[in-house]
């Protein structure tokens, strides 16, 4: 009798929890630690960007250089030497945004050169823009520094464990002198172990 009542209570609770039909969709914390797989993920991207930007902006010669002026920089692509498909532009976008928001550097956006040129051509040649209000050619600022980098990985595995080591290196070079003014590295190690049930 007692068991029957307990069973009824359990069934009722299951029915109540099943009232919300359809897929369960929820929003999560975008900055939460993500450990779904050992592949490159959002936590790795955010950690790399935060570490390297901190390292760049706290490097004493850079601190001294940016104390009185905001040098102009451009970001080159990050070479992906890992075996994974990684959107490295997403990493450089985050790094660029953080540096720009620090107020220490300004950027020229090489990914928008074609669109800028089209807009300038429109202003100059279309006849639709007041010549007195059109922006002039040849007035853009050249970048003083270039930011670029590499990303590599070492993957090792056995029957039960997969170990992934990522190394992300970023460098800043003076375009006029060719001198490397700064370099920073961030290493990440991720280990995945097969659970008992997935063996």
């Amino acid at each position, binding site marked *: 009798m007692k068991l029957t009542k307990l069973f009824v209570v359990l069934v009722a*609770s299951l029915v109540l929890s099943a009232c919300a039909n359809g897929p369960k969709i929820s929003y999560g914390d975008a900055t939460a*630690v993500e450990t779904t797989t050992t592949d490159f993920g959002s*936590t790795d991207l955010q*950690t790399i960007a935060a570490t390297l930007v901190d390292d760049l*902006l*706290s490097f004493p010669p850079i601190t001294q250089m*940016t104390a009185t002026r905001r040098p102009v920089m451009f970001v080159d692509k990050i070479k992906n030497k890992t075996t994974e498909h990684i959107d490295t532009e997403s990493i450089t976008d985050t790094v660029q945004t953080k540096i720009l928001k620090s107020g220490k550097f300004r950027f020229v956006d090489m990914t928008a050169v074609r669109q800028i040129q089209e807009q300038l051509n429109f202003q100059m040649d279309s006849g639709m823009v007041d010549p007195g209000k059109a922006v002039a050619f040849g007035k853009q600022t050249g970048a003083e520094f270039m930011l670029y980098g590499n990303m590599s990985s070492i993957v090792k595995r056995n029957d039960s464990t997969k170990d992934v080591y990522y190394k992300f290196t970023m460098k800043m070079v003076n375009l006029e002198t060719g001198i490397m003014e700064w370099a920073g590295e961030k290493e990440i190690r991720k280990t995945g172990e097969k659970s008992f049930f997935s063996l």
Partner: protein
Amino acid sequence: MRTNLIKLAGVAFIASVISACAVNETATVEVGPDGTKQIIESNSGLLAASLEIVDNKVGYSGDLLRVQATIKNDSRSALSFRYKFKWLDKDGFEVAVDGRPWTPLTITPYESKSVQALAPNPTVKAFKILVQD
């Protein structure tokens, strides 16, 4: 009837215990621009029982606030948790919301580890460290 209520209460208790496994505890320590420490919230079971923020240092890189916190594991087992920095301006408004990720950290028994961060811009005048198990 009374027996049924007790049973129902028992089931509810078990359900609450199961759901409590996913609880996120957060402890917050705030350091003002003058370097004085002020513990705002320390009701985390993890922090209170095993972890201790033993030291805070505040400095500047140019005009950017640079901070360091030393976290000590007072327990006899290794602890894995996450921490995150939050930045505040002089009026207490959060700067660069979600600008830093939760960062995983493991500390071996009785070891101390220092975590550092640089403020995202010169408007930052104080910071918080959040610890989550």
